[in-house]
């Protein structure tokens, strides 16, 4: 990362960093100790916070800025019968612990049953708490989602959660910057999920390590905020510490009018500041990756890490053809776990379950896109599908549009909000050997349930797959049968 001299052209990430330095790291022996950065927003959930609150209690420390902190319940919450006590005693204990901690430390909490409960990364933006140019942290790796607003948003571990609660700062070493330029425009049926899956397949699950990624180029500029969030969300799957998109009119329009958005003079001051954050024209990135959106097709994973993916129209690669022995071994192992053979056409793979949910793809726009495909059609009878809105608010909004009915008519289950089958901490889990087309972000072994097999897909591919029973593109559905009148 460049030095912070006033004349030096800077990237978006460097500007946000510059504006949050509380104490600059010391230079010694040619190395610099970390900078102390101020944190504008700290999001908290039940899984990674109990030990942090416990640490505060033991050291007799308060939460420094409860007014910059917000909590919600998401990972453990059931998606059925939410009016009953949580059945699993350990899940219930964790949620109860969060409630008690928030009460004790004065932290605002949106509990199960509240209209603003939901996946922490859906709730922040929806309340207008996520805004451009902020530093946002959460004890959750997919905090990178908030980078879509041009914020520096990072996942942190529990020790850092405690550190932020106690000090509202974080000690961080500067990152390198990588520009991911996506030129051209997406074709119909291809979505931002396909962009990020293609990026990860290109640079690898370790390709972003040490970097903050900035997504730019015409295809990114054309995306809605929700689609940008999907991309930034999965930056962590490329190993990056964060992903960002420069704030523009699309960003401002999204933030405007939300409950915590600035108003009046504050709004004008905010927009002026936000508009100054875009990467300077002659700023240098440490690395550059270029993709062409025109060439992208729906993308899907075949393996057990998000980098193991291909276009849906392709076949499973033969590990024998991989040059790198590490990649080869990993691919062989993945195919064994996935019970798939090299050369199989992706579209011949049958699934048992379709999961439409998670902080990657369970915002209103995602549900609308999937509903558009399935409307008037029937689900493959052998496939089960669950739809889990990202937040209670998304669920309400979808119901107001009648989208819930579209899913129900189709034969899908319409559930309450939460992380659900993205990681199966609640009862929503795959059975041993079950195969799932999932709009979530991780296809790790056992992630969605012990022995479960995950193919990562976009919402429209999930919808098409639920109709045909095999991994399918939206265009396959229209080819089968014209759109019903």
């Amino acid at each position, binding site marked *: 990362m460049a030095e912070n001299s006033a004349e030096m052209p800077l990237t978006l990430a460097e500007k946000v960093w510059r504006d949050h330095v*509380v*104490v600059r790291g010391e230079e010694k*022996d040619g190395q610099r*100790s*970390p900078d*102390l950065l*101020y944190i504008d*927003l700290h999001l908290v959930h039940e*899984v*990674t916070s*109990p*030990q942090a609150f*416990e640490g505060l209690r033991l050291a007799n420390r308060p939460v420094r800025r409860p007014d910059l*902190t917000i909590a919600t319940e998401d990972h*453990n919450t059931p998606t059925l019968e939410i009016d009953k006590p949580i059945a*699993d005693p*350990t*899940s219930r*204990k*964790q949620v109860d*612990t969060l409630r008690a901690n928030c009460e004790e430390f004065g932290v*605002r909490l949106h509990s199960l049953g509240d209209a603003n409960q939901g996946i922490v990364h859906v709730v922040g933006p929806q*309340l*207008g*708490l996520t*805004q451009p140019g902020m530093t946002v942290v959460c*004890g*959750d790796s997919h905090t990178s989602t908030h980078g879509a607003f041009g914020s520096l948003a990072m*996942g*942190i*571990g*529990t*020790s*850092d959660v405690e*550190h932020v609660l*106690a*000090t*509202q*700062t974080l*000690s961080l*070493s500067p990152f390198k910057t990588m520009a991911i330029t996506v030129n051209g425009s997406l074709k119909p049926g291809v979505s931002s999920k396909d962009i990020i899956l293609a990026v990860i397949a290109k640079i690898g*699950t*370790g390709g972003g*390590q040490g970097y903050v990624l900035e997504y730019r180029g015409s295809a990114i500029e054309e995306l809605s905020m929700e689609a940008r969030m999907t991309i930034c969300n999965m930056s962590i799957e490329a190993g990056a*510490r964060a992903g960002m998109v420069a704030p523009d009119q699309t960003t401002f329009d999204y933030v405007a009018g939300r409950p*915590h958005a*600035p108003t009046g003079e*504050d*709004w004008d*001051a905010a927009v002026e500041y936000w508009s100054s954050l875009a990467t300077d024209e002659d700023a240098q990135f440490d690395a550059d990756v270029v993709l062409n959106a025109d060439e992208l097709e729906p993308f899907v994973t075949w393996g057990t*890490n998000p980098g193991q993916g291909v276009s849906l129209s392709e076949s499973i690669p033969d590990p024998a053809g991989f040059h790198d022995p*590490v990649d080869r*071994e990993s691919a062989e*192992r993945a195919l064994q776990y996935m019970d798939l053979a090299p050369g199989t056409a992706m579209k011949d793979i049958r699934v048992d379950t379709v999961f439409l949910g998670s902080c990657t793809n369970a915002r209103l726009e995602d549900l609308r896109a999937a509903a558009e495909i399935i409307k008037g059609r029937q689900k493959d009878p052998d496939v089960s599908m669950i739809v889990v809105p990202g937040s209670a608010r998304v669920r309400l909004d979808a119901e107001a549009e009648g989208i819930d009915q579209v899913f129900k008519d189709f034969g899908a289950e319409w559930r309450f909000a939460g992380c659900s089958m993205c*990681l199966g*901490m609640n009862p929503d889990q795959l059975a041993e050997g079950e195969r799932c087309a999932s709009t979530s972000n991780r296809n*790790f*072994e*056992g992630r969605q349930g*012990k022995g479960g097999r995950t193919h990562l897909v976009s919402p429209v591919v999930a919808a098409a797959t639920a109709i045909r029973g095999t991994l399918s593109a939206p265009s396959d559905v229209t080819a089968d049968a014209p759109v019903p009148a």
Partner: protein
Amino acid sequence: MEPITTHTGVGVPLKQSNVDTDQIIPAVFLKRITKTGFDDALFHAWRKKDDFVLNQEPYRHGTVLVAGPDFGTGSSREHAVWALKDYGFRVVVSSRFADIFYSNAAKQGLVAAKVAQPDVELIFKELEKEPGTEVTVNLESRTVRCGSVEATFEMDNYTRWRLMEGLDDISLTLRQEAAITTYETTRGAFKPTTLPAKV
């Protein structure tokens, strides 16, 4: 946090890349609200298989895990570090670590030693040639020794200093309290607050 300068212990070869945090500790164990007692959770799925390395002597009591590249990818769960430590590991050697894992490890006094992949391969060979071979990691000299292999590892000065001193981050930062308070007075008035709640 216990200061650590050198450590010697049985090396455990885990010849896999992308050992993600869901493998290190599956999500079901994240429901606990304590910070210790995760030793049973470590590599939970793999430990059910007899041929898994930790189910074999002399690896069972190993304290230095030697793994393929991209160790600790995936979630931010610090539980992954707690589980490794609770099991008895003091050091993980890999050519590449996921960023969050790396920083979590440093905070808990687990040494994540970044050793170049060719050297990792040589260490694997030593460990396979003579199972039970000890690995010595020295933070002072930033070296890893195993049998006839001696390799250097990368670690920034600050992380190394904190590990060697066993320093707690929060008390370090609270020395900067005045600077934090000053910074707070300069924040833009338009910046959002969560309280009072507006919904």
